[in-house]
């Protein structure tokens, strides 16, 4: 078989591999196209605007051209004649207390994902929630958020949300629904609830659990099922295997010197990931003399943000993880059954030795998608190393009524099939889309006599139900929820339901015969009963204000390892190629499919937008002759689905990874046509990994909107990295070979900054590439979504992008992330070329963009070496959709067509802080101005502040020897600089 294939303009993986092997020194690269130097890639790099951007659809004739030029010149002047349209002022009739027009208020609440809460503070402008920030007091947030929380405010205003109660697809009302429910309820009570089933997603709400408990007491024959795709069945079962009870592991990463993640996306998708990322990054500060740097080993089938942060990353098929865990367990002295591992022996030896050396300060973590035995082995290893109670503690599950969800769903399907289900109440779940295809949920659902669905969207499940009730978004409803370690937050609404949505509490109340109970009364009443203290009102107000209920964190439990776990025989490996199913890094299990911000956010590792793909390793692609974007048929256990291929360096060989959540058929306009539905080849028995995958080529292609080659700076010493040893020997390594011209080497006179001088430092040691900054910036600065076609043309509008670089070979590269906002150069190339003076330098060092002056020549963008300027080729901002108007940040202009824009260092926040400080007659304090990207960052990688203040955090970071600017040889003198990355590899495993 020939090894030469044609991919995206022709490239030869074997030749790339050879070239990489021969290349000298460190080399950072972004993608295969770059390595292959395909003509398309060259063209992309050489033109600021991708080819085709400025082309006419039809070449006009000379005469037509003259017409157009003349007419535009003539008409251009006329646009200035527009008179400003008159505007109305609409004051309150009765002004609410606390609201000062023009001043936002912040309210504490929480967002749940997988049932577990992340505390947030929501910015509200006169009753409109516009921006989500983390809640510093909440244990799962610590002030930061993930991409989902940042984007959730867009879902609130999504015009595609379901807006009305429907019966049989026709518009109905809540009142008629309630009438029907009370009729049904009478019948159910008579039968003690026989034939009544409730299906929820994972529930951690104490109030909902109590409500359902009451309902089930009334109707003892009824059954409550829980199911969502990304459940934690395996982890719970693993704990049961290891300890005899389903405890939840809570990690203390700050205490761990050595961490081994067994296919565990601890920093990305795990419960508590935002907090874990913070704790992890706190131990990645090599410049901080007080702190020792931790070491992270990761074995995983496809790269995740955790793998990219690792000091040693081992690409390993998911099915091999158990065998690796067994080998490591044996090497730390446990007597477990061995099965031979395909991981290199020296890797296992070195990892085990490192773990042992740091006994009590090390940690082994198994991923939620790994089978129970891997979790049990991880618990056993932690137990043997004395980590239990130190780097990992065990608590009762924070979920209410924790159950094996896949088994629970299977039982429901069995009962539906057997005609034992008469009434099914689906609360928020979307099983018709989510359930593994082999359960044939939709087919059996039709046998249920009365099907009722509560959901944010009229989704796949709603379409199969008799009744659909619009659900209230979490920003519209009262509720409560627990964090991953148990702390309760009472969720308070920021706005009345936009579309008359109902919360789960109100639905359950309707079935309990109390249809008029408001969510507020239900939640408050529950807590009043729980509260044992004197002054309930004070407790209630404080809990709402702080966003946490004090003293509700679950207490660490004493657990003891069952020795039998060591005797469990190894699982069979399975034949052929394996396929792994994973939650999507941006749209999760599909619930965010209609969220444009998340669809357009490049996936952290693949830089793919608006699509999922079959991720394969370069070796597998070579062997099967696959090319990027080639559509293949994935066939598994009799089912098949068609998927485009994307070759990802660092994927394990013989393993294909697909992300869930795509291929939605009834998710809304935004999600339409995005990706393929991987659930179609999942099975209930093997929800996360199947073997015996057949890959059949179809000969077709699907163009993917991948941003990895966009805005390329052609690898000019942009990422700088070294090992801890190299850093200790030579702290200034980041500056070797870099040319930094002296300040006076400029024809232009320098600026003097007498007041403030703003600057930003981005710590590449901390950055995990999660993308929270990108979405936070989009929310704060009213950045539009452009859609798949425009992204494919290189026109994404994000003001901050996260560049991902590979270093080293094709099969097992190191991975680096580099967030790139505007550099706010002191000698900015963009400023001097603007013919209208729309981009200018401020007295505080900002590189300002004045939209109302911009006429769209794009000279500035052409002249920007960092490629951080974004142009509105069309009217990207949605000016028409009514609901989206309420979403916008009133402090930032909504840009129109033909205008250039870019990162402003959140100048609206600077101005606000400056005015507050001046009113009080003082200087702005360090940390008072927090940019949106900085606020969202889980790892505190972004630090912003005043460079004129030598005591500011940013000034101190910039004084570090690791601090470097990019493309400084151009004498641009950037204000955004980076702290070079220092990895802490095990000397025994270091590459030769």
């Amino acid at each position, binding site marked *: 078989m020939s090894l030469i294939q044609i991919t995206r303009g022709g490239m030869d993986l074997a030749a790339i591999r050879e070239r990489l092997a021969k290349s000298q020194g460190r080399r950072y690269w972004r993608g295969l196209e770059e390595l292959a130097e395909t003509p398309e890639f060259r063209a992309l790099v050489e033109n600021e605007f991708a080819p085709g951007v400025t082309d006419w659809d039809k070449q006009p004739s000379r005469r037509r051209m003259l017409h157009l030029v003349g007419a535009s010149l003539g008409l251009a002047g006329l646009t200035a004649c527009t008179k*400003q349209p*008159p505007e109305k002022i*609409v*004051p309150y009739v009765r002004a609410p207390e606390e609201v000062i027009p*023009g001043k936002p208020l912040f309210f504490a609440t929480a967002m749940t994902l997988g049932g577990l809460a992340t505390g947030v503070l929501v910015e509200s402008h006169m009753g409109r929630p516009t921006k989500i920030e983390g809640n510093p007091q909440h244990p799962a947030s610590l002030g930061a958020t993930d991409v989902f929380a940042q984007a959730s405010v867009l879902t609130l205003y999504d015009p595609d949300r379901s807006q009305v109660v429907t019966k049989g697809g026709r518009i109905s009302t809540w009142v008629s629904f309630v009438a029907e429910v009370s009729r049904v309820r009478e019948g159910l009570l008579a039968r003690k609830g026989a034939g009544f089933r409730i299906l929820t997603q994972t529930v951690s709400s104490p109030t909902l659990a109590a409500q359902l408990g009451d309902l089930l007491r009334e109707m003892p024959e009824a059954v409550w099922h829980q199911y969502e795709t990304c459940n934690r069945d395996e982890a719970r079962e693993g704990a049961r295997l290891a300890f005899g009870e389903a405890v939840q592991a809570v990690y203390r990463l700050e205490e761990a010197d050595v961490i081994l993640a067994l296919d565990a996306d601890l920093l990305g998708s795990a419960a508590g990931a935002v907090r874990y990322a913070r704790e992890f990054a706190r131990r990645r500060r090599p410049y901080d003399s007080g702190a020792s740097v931790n070491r992270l080993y990761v074995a995983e089938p496809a790269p995740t943000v955790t793998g990219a942060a690792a000091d040693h990353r081992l690409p390993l098929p998911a099915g091999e993880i158990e065998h690796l865990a067994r080998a490591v367990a044996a090497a730390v002295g446990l007597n477990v059954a061995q099965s031979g591992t395909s991981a290199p022996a020296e890797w296992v030896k070195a990892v085990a030795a490192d773990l042992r050396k740091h006994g009590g300060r090390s940690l082994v973590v198994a991923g939620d998608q790994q089978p129970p035995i891997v979790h049990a082995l991880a618990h056993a290893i932690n137990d043997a190393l004395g980590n239990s109670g130190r780097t990992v503690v065990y608590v009762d599950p924070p979920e209410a009524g924790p159950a094996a969800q896949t088994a629970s769903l299977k039982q429901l399907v069995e009962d539906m099939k057997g005609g034992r289900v008469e009434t099914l109440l689906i609360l928020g779940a979307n099983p018709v889309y989510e359930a593994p295809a082999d359960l044939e949920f939709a087919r059996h659902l039709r046998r249920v006599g009365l099907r009722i669905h509560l959901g944010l969207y009229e989704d796949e499940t709603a379409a199969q139900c008799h009744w659909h009730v619009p659900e209230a978004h979490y920003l519209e409803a009262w509720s409560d929820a627990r964090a991953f370690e148990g702390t309760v937050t009472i969720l308070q609404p920021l706005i009345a339901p936009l579309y008359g949505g109902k919360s789960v509490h109100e639905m359950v109340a309707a079935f309990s015969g109390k249809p008029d109970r408001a969510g507020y009364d239900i939640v408050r009443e529950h807590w009043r009963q729980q509260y044992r203290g004197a002054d309930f009102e004070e407790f209630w107000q404080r809990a709402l204000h702080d966003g946490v209920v004090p003293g509700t964190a679950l207490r660490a439990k004493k657990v003891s390892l069952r020795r039998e776990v060591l005797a469990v025989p190894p699982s069979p490996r399975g034949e052929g190629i394996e396929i792994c199913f994973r939650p999507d890094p941006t749209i999760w299990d599909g619930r965010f499919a209609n969220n444009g911000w998340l669809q357009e956010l490049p996936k952290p590792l693949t830089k793919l937008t608006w699509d999922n793909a079959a991720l394969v390793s370069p070796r597998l692609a070579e062997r099967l002759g696959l090319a990027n974007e080639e559509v293949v048929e994935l066939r598994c256990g009799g089912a098949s689905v068609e998927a485009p291929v994307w070759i990802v360096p660092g994927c394990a060989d013989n393993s294909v990874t697909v992300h869930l959540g795509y291929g939605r058929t009834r998710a809304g306009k935004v999600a339409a046509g995005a990706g393929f539905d991987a659930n179609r080849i999942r099975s209930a028995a093997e929800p996360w990994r199947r073997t015996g995958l057949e890959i059949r080529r179809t000969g077709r292609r699907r163009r993917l909107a991948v941003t990895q080659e966009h805005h390329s700076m052609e690898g000019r010493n942009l990422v700088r990295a070294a090992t801890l040893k190299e850093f200790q020997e030579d702290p200034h390594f980041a500056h070797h070979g870099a040319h930094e011209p002296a300040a006076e080497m400029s024809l232009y006179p320098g600026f003097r900054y007498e007041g403030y001088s703003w600057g930003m430092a981005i710590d590449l040691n901390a950055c995990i590439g999660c993308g929270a900054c990108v979405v936070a910036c989009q929310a704060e600065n009213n950045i539009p979504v452009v859609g798949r076609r425009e992204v494919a043309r290189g026109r994404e509008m994000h003001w901050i992008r996260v560049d991902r670089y590979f270093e080293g070979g094709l099969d097992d590269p190191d991975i680096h992330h580099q967030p790139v906002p505007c550099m706010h150069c002191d000698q900015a190339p963009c400023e001097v070329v603007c013919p209208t003076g729309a981009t*200018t330098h401020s007295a505080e060092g900002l590189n300002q963009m004045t939209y109302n002056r911009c006429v769209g020549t794009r000279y500035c963008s052409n002249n920007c070496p960092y490629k951080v300027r974004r142009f509105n080729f069309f009217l990207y901002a949605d000016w028409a959709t009514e609901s989206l108007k309420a979403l916008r940040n009133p402090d*930032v202009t909504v840009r129109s067509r033909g205008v250039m824009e870019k990162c402003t260092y959140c100048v609206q926040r600077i*101005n606000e802080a400056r005015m507050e400080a001046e009113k009080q007659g003082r200087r702005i304090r360090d940390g008072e101005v927090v940019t949106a990207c900085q606020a969202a960052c889980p790892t505190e990688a972004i630090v912003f502040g005043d460079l004129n203040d030598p005591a500011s955090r940013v000034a101190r970071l910039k004084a570090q020897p690791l601090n470097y600017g990019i493309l400084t040889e151009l004498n641009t003198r950037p204000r955004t600089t980076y702290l070079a990355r220092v990895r802490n590899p095990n000397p025994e495993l270091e590459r030769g």
Partner: protein
Amino acid sequence: MQIFHPSTNTIAKVSIFGAVFFIAGLLWVANEIQRSSYMTGVGVARPQPVPFSHKHHVSGIGIDCRYCHTSVETSSFAGIPPTETCMSCHSQIWAESPMLEPVRASFRTDQSIQWTRVHDLPQFVYFDHSIHVNKGIGCDTCHGRVDQMPLMWNVKTLQMEWCLECHREPERFVRPREEVFNMNWQPPKDQLALGRELVRKYQIRKLTDCSICHR
């Protein structure tokens, strides 16, 4: 043979010469229109749903600006009073006046009164009342003698050149903080001396960077 009559030369010369004046004239006209009250609304009283008279309420009764414009010292927006504020007096005084029916209707029906904005900046300009008030810019510096206006009108163009007059030379306009809400305050003869003193005292900076107002 001569194609053109000799007079054509003169016509050509005159037309070329005249074109300069013609174009200059066009530009002048455009400029005049742009600055005219037709465009800026200077001196044009705006009709309102209720003919509210600042003259009556401010100079007649002596109500302070901040009684209604409550957030002027703390927020970017000075604040337009809720109907409730009007009704706090007008449930007692002129309680039957037909002129005030829209106010009572608003209070009854919970529907806001829709006022026409008089001082209307473009959407891309971010003005903040609180900082100006705190730095000693009087209400009437921008809004004129509101206490003498039966209906509101603009006295200033609100064009950028006008903003910059003060942003470049604040000493010409600044007054003591305690005089900000005083409609009768007259600048002293040596305003420049006072201004320079206040600029120093209030630490007023000449903020002419674009991003101060545009963002």
